[in-house]
């Protein structure tokens, strides 16, 4: 097996042996279970005349609640990715774990890419399995399925990969805790900058709107989150938002348009740049 895959396998093995996967599995089951119960309660709400809510209202409430739950889920995924990626390189440099491995015929680029692949596979798997379970639970409880479930899970998974890549890049130079904290703060700042951009769009203030654009370029996590929101919104809701004009865009938990293709292309380039910088930085690091 090539060294890059050996390192990837080792990263997955470590997460499994250190019970990270088990902890995430248990937490996910708990969250999915509770949210299924909560979503089921929506179907029991009655109108003032005692009749049940019509299906379109159940779908609307469910879609809005699902956006909030997914926001929390994507936050947990981003947080987990940042915290795990932060010490991915620096922790092993500081402990001396990498000394004997790097004395083998292993390129540093293989270590960086191998770790990214291993943790990236876990992030993608977690997004698919946990997100899929949540959507399944919501469907079971309310009969509602978001219009674009595959895109939703892809965007949420990609957001986790963004944080993983940022944490890994920082980890080639900074201590684990510093890298993790910076990645988390950057994620929050990017989200807030996205909200500012939305408000700017709503108020038709170009300067504020540019804050959102720049933040989406520097750290595309919020742009991907907007894509996830769009994938969860029923068409009727999107039409209603659009009818509001620019004011309809001034909402951090709503999206009137899917992410443009140019942005998605930039996300691919961003990943390449982040990984390239990580390799370059680690190759120059003295151990």
């Amino acid at each position, binding site marked *: 097996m090539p060294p890059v895959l050996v390192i990837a396998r080792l990263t997955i093995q470590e997460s499994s042996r250190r019970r990270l996967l088990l902890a995430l599995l248990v937490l996910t089951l708990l969250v999915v279970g509770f949210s299924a119960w909560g979503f089921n309660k929506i179907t029991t709400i009655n109108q003032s005349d005692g009749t049940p809510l019509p299906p379109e209202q159940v779908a609307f409430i469910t879609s809005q609640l699902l956006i909030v739950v997914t926001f929390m889920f994507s936050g947990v995924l981003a947080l987990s990715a940042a915290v795990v990626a932060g010490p991915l390189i620096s922790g092993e440099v500081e402990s001396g774990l990498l000394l004997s491995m790097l004395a083998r015929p292993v390129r*540093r680029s293989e270590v960086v890419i191998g770790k990214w692949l291993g943790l990236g596979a876990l992030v993608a798997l977690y997004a698919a399995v946990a997100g899929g379970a949540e959507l399944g639970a919501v469907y079971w409880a309310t009969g509602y399925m978001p219009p674009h479930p595959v895109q939703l899970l892809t965007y949420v998974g990609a957001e986790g990969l963004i944080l993983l890549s940022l944490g890994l890049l920082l980890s080639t130079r900074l201590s684990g805790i510093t890298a993790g904290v910076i990645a988390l703060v950057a994620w929050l700042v990017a989200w807030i900058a996205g909200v500012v951009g939305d408000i700017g769009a709503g108020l038709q203030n170009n300067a504020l709107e540019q804050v959102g654009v720049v933040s989406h370029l520097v750290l595309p996590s919020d742009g991907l989150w907007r894509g996830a929101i769009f994938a969860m919104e029923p068409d009727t809701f999107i039409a209603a938002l659009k009818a509001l004009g620019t004011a309809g865009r001034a909402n951090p938990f709503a999206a009137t348009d899917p992410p443009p293709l140019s942005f998605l292309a930039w996300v691919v380039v961003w990943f390449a740049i982040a990984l390239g910088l990580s390799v370059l930085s680690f190759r120059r690091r003295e151990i």
Partner: protein
Amino acid sequence: MAELAEKTGTAAAAPQEAAAGTTAVKTVELTKRFGKTVALAGLTMTVPRGEVFGFLGPNGAGKTTAVKLLLGLLSPTAGQGWLLGRPLGDLAARRRIGYLPELFRYQYWLSASEVLALHCELAPLPRSSWKDEIRTVLETVGLKDRAHDKVGTFSKGMQQRLGLGAALLGEPELVFLDEPTSALDPIGRHDVREIIRGLASRGTAVFLNSHLLSEVEQVCDRVAVVDHGRVIASGTMDDLLSGTAVRVRVTGLSQADKNTLAEFGSIDDEDENLTFTNLAADRVPELVSAIVSMGGRVYEVAPRHQTLEDRFLQLLEEEEK
């Protein structure tokens, strides 16, 4: 800072590189600075294949820096080096090298045999040989009964044994051992000496970083003494330990008398025991006569060969002056 080398061995041949082909380790003016601190100042040395080479020095002398430079973990500020005839950082050379770091740490969530299998895979060794390789090194380092235990349950000494085992996988041509007995008890230290002798007997070059001089003296063919990043002496044991030392147990001498006796050689003054290093055997009667003439009362005169420790301390003392 220069990018750390990961070469594939296609560098143009140079005369020094050609000469390096017959050696295990060769360096020319290898230098490393961290900011204003000089960690290694122009190290030039050659370690022939099959030789056990001791690299000695006090803490902070630059020993570990030298090993890390040789293994491509650090990039040199200046100078050149070759391992097994290949430039530093060459991946092909690393296939034939074993390394036990001073800071030995292995995946605590793997078992001992899994750690060794990981190193077999990275080395890389043919998969068909892993089982035998792992069994052999576990027996060699005395961990046969702990093969399937998690590294997290190991004592420091056992982890160092495991690291030594990893360094021995695949019968490397050159093994770097950086303070290999720092966590070991006397039995373990004896075992390591035997392992080093075994490596030497099959023609493996050993680069032994240590400040445990008695060990170095017992196993090394040649040594280099490094201090403040510079090699202050090097050669075979016979070259370095040419002088004899004489210990005299004496009372009744003043400090002025002792100062006068310094003409007989460097004096190590410990209460009643005066040790004269580098004193030729035929001057011993003259020394005793001088002590007696000063009014000193001599109880014992014990000539002995200079140990590496004597020589090491002497070299560092001279360096301080």
